[in-house]
């Protein structure tokens, strides 16, 4: 009897422990191991940090040559003081991992197409397959090779990696970042390849924009004339980033111009999403002649999909020869955007087309060989092994060609289309951007900046610069292929190597400018250069509004103060609305409007074109615009076929100048509509939508409420870890905060001779832990357009009253 009782209760206990110690999928949803996760001594409760988090910690670190002091200020920004570069990067790795380990690993898993190892769904498997087929790891391996060939970056990567691994080694379950506990897995050792993957991840965000297939389909469906009307190379609006007509005095490289054959095919495949066109950025530098202090000032705000843990990690790096502060990308050493004692720099995306698709001619059904220059060349098969959590491994064969991987083929996203398309991407080139940042962190003047940029290939960026010695500059840096006219706009014939990139524009022939007469340099993803620049270039799109507003404000303002530039970064003036709304309102039949439409009309009529948080006019205008675009371009929504919409600027231009264009006819109706009809119809649809919104939400439709922005956690379904924000602005506005994208870092630097000063903020916080007060402690000031003065420490004992935590790293005693 007793034995039975003992055995039964023992079995129940053990069974219960087993159940509670493992993760399960219940109702299609993964749940963490209930006991392990909820145990307050080790589980998620341990990730809750207390209000009082001041601490002084001494650690012995393997691989360190000399002691390193780290001071965390009240925003939890680390200030690292090391005695040499090796220790500096080791400490950067360690400290970054302390706050962002989960994010670093997750983002590199995402880049490499390994999310299925953590979360298994069909969508995630398809995502992973796409990453493999885009050759992300292939590109990262080549970048790593370049990094390891250079002794400086080889050391950087090795030490940074060592620092991260030192941190991982010391971790117990209760110290694991929250997301590991939630998803029930463990961090793996860091590798230098992951640093490279992270940079490729950024390249994917910024440099993978293209519309070659979309343009090819448009060409076949509508003809060349319409394509040129809908998608002109140049929209002829605003100032280019560098306006230097007749000033390009060099001999450009000319390649034998084989006339490119225009493709005549319809490509039916589900194209992968490329870089989001609403990601963009602003930056500018103002010379001392225009500022109140007489010293140059520099500003930067890169716009990205806003996420938590935050995209950027602020840090100060100090060692002999370097004293730099700014933001780093968790997972990559050095500072990417920032300043030092002598200079400041920031970046915006250059937009240029650096992606080509090559149509592959196969030898037959089995696709063993492809045609190149009259010969049949074997494809190189790479079997991608995608481990899927709780499921058998998925194997995907990706064929590589002279051009790159064949992303789309019979097994991937191709509908009824038995062609293969190979992906040629600049990020597959061997390059070593880490060296640029290492050098920029240490740059003293304009010529150091120029030298640092010479090895920067991608993602192509507009690098703004200012120095304490009084220079301001802009350089559009990247590795740009020399293109024939129209090359890169359409899918190319992959059977001849001469159709590929023959040469690259030499660094010294890239677009650049130093101390221009107007007293400032600026960029906002607009077209790069005046028409006298001797190279052909295209992009998916160039920005048309932010750049003009920025230049207008900067030209008009004299004796500029820091506050003026903060105000400009947060400027909500909607130039697009100012240019389009009067015409739209004119198209309405205002005499016959009634009810909600009449109210909307009068609100819009008196709107000041500012997308402020409280504005009602902004809500009406944006709702109107958002219903107008799909109504106009309904012809471009074809099942299973990639087509892209013309830009905002060109759409408005066509409404005004070509109201009878056939595209304004709505396909689903028997009538023949003109621009005016579509604008009126969109107005009714928008007002109906707003009335519905009002019933469900509030009586007044304030723009911040209607926009309903949020900073989303990197795990998309985790809305509970995301944070809603109420702000003004939108895409196409200097304060580019749309529902999901926006300024991921706002920085203002004043380069004074008495010491460089800076103010900054970002939408989140230094800690990646949702249980820390530093998870999003910078968000409030960011939302309200305010800044934190950056604590730029001279030595570890400086600014003691603002030190929250101290960390001392000691080398191992021999």
């Amino acid at each position, binding site marked *: 009897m007793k034995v039975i009782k*003992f055995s039964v209760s023992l079995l129940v206990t053990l069974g219960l422990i087993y159940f509670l110690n493992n993760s399960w999928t219940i109702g299609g949803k993964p749940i963490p191991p209930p006991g392990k996760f909820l145990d307050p001594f080790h589980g998620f409760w341990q*990730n809750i*940090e207390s209000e*009082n988090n001041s601490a002084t910690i001494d650690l012995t670190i393997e691989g360190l040559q000399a002691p390193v002091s780290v001071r965390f200020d009240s925003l939890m920004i680390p200030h690292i003081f090391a005695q040499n570069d090796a220790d500096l990067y080791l400490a950067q790795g360690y400290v970054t991992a302390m706050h962002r380990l989960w994010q670093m690993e997750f983002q590199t898993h995402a880049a490499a197409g390994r999310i299925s190892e953590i979360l298994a769904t069909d969508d995630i498997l398809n995502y992973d397959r796409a990453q493999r087929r885009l050759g992300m790891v292939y590109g990262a391996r080549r970048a790593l090779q370049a990094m390891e060939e250079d002794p400086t970056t080889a050391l950087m990567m090795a030490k940074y990696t060592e620092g991260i691994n030192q941190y991982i080694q010391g971790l117990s379950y209760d110290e694991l970042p929250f997301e590991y506990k939630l998803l029930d897995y463990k961090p793996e050792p860091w590798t230098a390849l992951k640093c490279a993957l992270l940079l490729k991840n950024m390249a994917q965000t910024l440099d993978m924009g293209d519309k070659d297939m979309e343009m090819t389909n448009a060409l076949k469906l509508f003809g060349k004339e319409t394509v040129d009307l809908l998608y002109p190379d140049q929209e002829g609006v605003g100032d280019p980033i560098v306006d230097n007509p007749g000033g390009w005095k060099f001999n450009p490289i000319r390649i034998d111009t084989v006339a490119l054959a225009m493709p005549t095919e319809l490509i039916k495949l589900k194209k992968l999403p490329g870089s989001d066109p609403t990601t963009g950025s602003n930056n500018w530098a103002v010379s001392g002649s225009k500022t109140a202090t007489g010293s140059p000032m520099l500003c930067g705000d890169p716009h990205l999909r806003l996420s938590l843990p935050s995209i950027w990690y602020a840090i100060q790096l100090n060692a002999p020869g370097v004293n730099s502060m700014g933001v780093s990308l968790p997972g990559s050493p050095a500072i990417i955007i920032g300043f030092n004692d002598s200079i400041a720099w920031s970046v915006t995306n250059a937009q240029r087309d650096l992606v080509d698709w090559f149509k592959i001619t196969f030898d037959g059904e089995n696709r063993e060989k492809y045609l190149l220059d009259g010969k049949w060349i074997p494809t190189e098969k790479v079997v991608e092994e995608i481990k899927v959590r709780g499921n058998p491994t998925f194997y995907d064969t990706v064929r590589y060609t002279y051009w790159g991987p064949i992303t789309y083929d019979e097994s991937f996203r191709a509908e009824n289309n038995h062609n293969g398309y190979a992906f040629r991407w600049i990020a597959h080139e061997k390059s070593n951007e880490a060296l640029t940042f290492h050098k920029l962190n240490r740059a003293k003047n304009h010529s150091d900046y120029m030298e640092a940029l010479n090895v920067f290939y991608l993602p192509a960026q507009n690098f703004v610069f200012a120095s304490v010695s009084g220079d301001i500059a802009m350089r559009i840096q990247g590795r740009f292929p020399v293109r024939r006219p129209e090359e890169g706009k359409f899918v190319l014939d992959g059977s001849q190597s001469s159709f590929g990139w023959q040469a690259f524009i030499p660094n010294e022939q890239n677009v650049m400018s130093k101390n221009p007469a107007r007293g400032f340099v600026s960029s906002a993803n607009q077209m790069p250069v005046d028409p006298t620049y001797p190279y052909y270039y295209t992009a998916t799109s160039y920005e048309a509004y932010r750049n003009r507003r920025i230049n207008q404000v900067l030209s008009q303002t004299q004796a500029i103060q820091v506050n003026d530039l903060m105000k400009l970064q947060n400027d909500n003036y909607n130039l697009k609305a100012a240019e389009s709304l009067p015409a739209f309102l004119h198209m309405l039949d205002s005499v016959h409007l009634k009810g909600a439409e009449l109210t909307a009309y009068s609100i819009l009529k008196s709107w000041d074109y500012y997308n402020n948080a409280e504005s009602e006019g902004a809500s009406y205008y944006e709702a109107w615009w958002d219903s107008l675009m799909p109504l106009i371009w309904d012809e471009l929504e074809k099942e299973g076929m990639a087509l892209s919409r013309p830009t905002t600027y060109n759409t408005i231009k066509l409404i005004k100048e070509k109201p009878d264009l056939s595209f304004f006819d709505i396909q689903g109706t028997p009538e023949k509509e003109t621009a005016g009809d579509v604008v009126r119809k969109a107005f009714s649809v928008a007002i109906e939508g707003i009335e519905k919104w009002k019933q469900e939400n509030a009586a007044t439709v304030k723009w911040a409420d209607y926009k309903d922005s949020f900073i989303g956690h990197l795990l998309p379904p985790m*809305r509970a870890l995301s944070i809603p924000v109420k702000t003004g602005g939108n895409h196409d506005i200097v304060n580019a905060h749309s529902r999901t994208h926006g300024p991921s870092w706002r920085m203002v630097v004043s380069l004074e001779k008495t010491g460089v000063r800076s103010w900054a903020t970002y939408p989140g916080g230094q800690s990646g832990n949702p249980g820390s007060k530093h998870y999003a402690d910078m968000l409030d000031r960011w939302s309200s357009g305010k800044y934190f003065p950056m604590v730029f420490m001279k030595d570890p004992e400086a600014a003691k009253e603002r030190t929250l935590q101290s960390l001392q790293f000691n080398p191992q005693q021999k």
Partner: protein
Amino acid sequence: MKFGLQVLATMILGYALAIFLPWWTVAIAAFLCGMIFNTRANFGAGFLGIALLWLLKAWLIDSTAAAPLSERVAAIMGLSKPLLFLVTALIGGLVGGFAAMTGAALNKPKRRGTYY
């Protein structure tokens, strides 16, 4: 009286083990206490000991929390915050209860015919 002592002993031993060892060692604490004390309600004592220990610890952590992670977790699990505390206590309690029962079964029976 003895029941109260068993609960208290389970809590203290559970706490001591939890500092160094994984979460499931609370079962060892409840098991040992069940074996030593073997009161009339071992399941109850083990359950209460661990449930109270976990509830108290969770409450202590949450009372000085600088960020609403418990709310966030409750939202992920579709629970209210008080319910998250109760579920935490319940899970610890169940393990403690069954472990105490198992331990008690190793001890010589106090009274025949009584189940616990």
